């Protein structure tokens, strides 16, 4: 099976979001990035092996760096890395295929549901769902916390003047969490469109 066929058989757990994301674009935007390929490596040898593959390895825990061909790598544990492609057509398959049997780390299948949250209402959305103060968090450092009761990794990023939050979580919670966030996002949107008193 070739590359394009493989993509076509994959399905995002957040598929249902697509329509809603547009509707709430004004205050909070929710974009589904689940179909970007992901890959992980865990174990003492992971960092050096990634470095040999030309990956700029984040030195401190929870730091992130761009991948050479787009996408990013996040150090999600002392010896654990999470990689995500930057484009739908970017493949990380080569990483997995190259791991030798003798490697002293384990390749990890990552199928996280992934969101990008944008807009001036992002922090209001988190205020209703997360007990950790994200507004005080540094950029490009992943935060493991809970959003609406689900364990998530959240990466605050700035693109230009805009703040955005990348959120990854177990795909089995995708429908629940996606719907909960969408509901709040639309309420924030409605509240913003009401004439102020």
């Amino acid at each position, binding site marked *: 099976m070739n590359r394009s066929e493989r993509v076509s058989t994959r399905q995002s757990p957040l598929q249902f979001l697509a329509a809603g994301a547009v509707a709430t674009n004004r205050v909070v935007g929710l974009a589904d990035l689940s179909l970007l390929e992901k890959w992980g490596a865990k174990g003492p040898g992971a960092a050096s092996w990634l470095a040999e593959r030309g990956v700029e390895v984040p030195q401190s*825990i929870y730091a992130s760096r761009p991948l050479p061909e787009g996408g990013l790598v996040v150090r999600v544990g002392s010896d654990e890395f999470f990689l995500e492609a930057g484009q739908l057509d970017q493949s990380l398959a080569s990483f997995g295929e190259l791991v030798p049997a003798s490697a002293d780390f384990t390749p990890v299948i990552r199928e996280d549901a992934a969101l990008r949250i944008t807009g001036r209402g992002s922090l209001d959305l988190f205020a209703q769902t997360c*007990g*950790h103060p994200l507004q005080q968090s540094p950029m490009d450092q992943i*935060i*493991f916390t*809970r959003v609406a009761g689900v*364990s998530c*990794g959240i990466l605050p990023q700035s693109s230009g003047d805009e703040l955005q939050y990348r959120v990854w979580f177990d795909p089995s919670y995708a429908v629940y969490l996606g719907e909960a966030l969408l509901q709040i996002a639309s309420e924030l949107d409605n509240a913003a469109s009401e004439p102020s008193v």
Partner: protein
Amino acid sequence: MKIIHCPVNGPRPLQEFYFGGQFRAVPTSEQEDAMTDAEWSDYAFNRDGSPGIQKEWWYHTPSGTWFIAERDIVTDVFVRTYLFDQADQESGNDG
């Protein structure tokens, strides 16, 4: 709502944590074999639940981090928290 300082993730609200009970050194297989039934049942069942500072396990769920806390179980003050291995280095015991 308690704030607990995870040694890896920093201060977080209680909801992100799971309480893992009192810390107890696990007997090695040799020690275990040498224990009488009474000594084993004492280890298996009995706890030191008396007032004071208790060494205990906590788990930060979103990141999957186990760590040790020393907490006053009367005032609920966390005296300190550290990773299991760090405790080992600091106190030099065999865990």
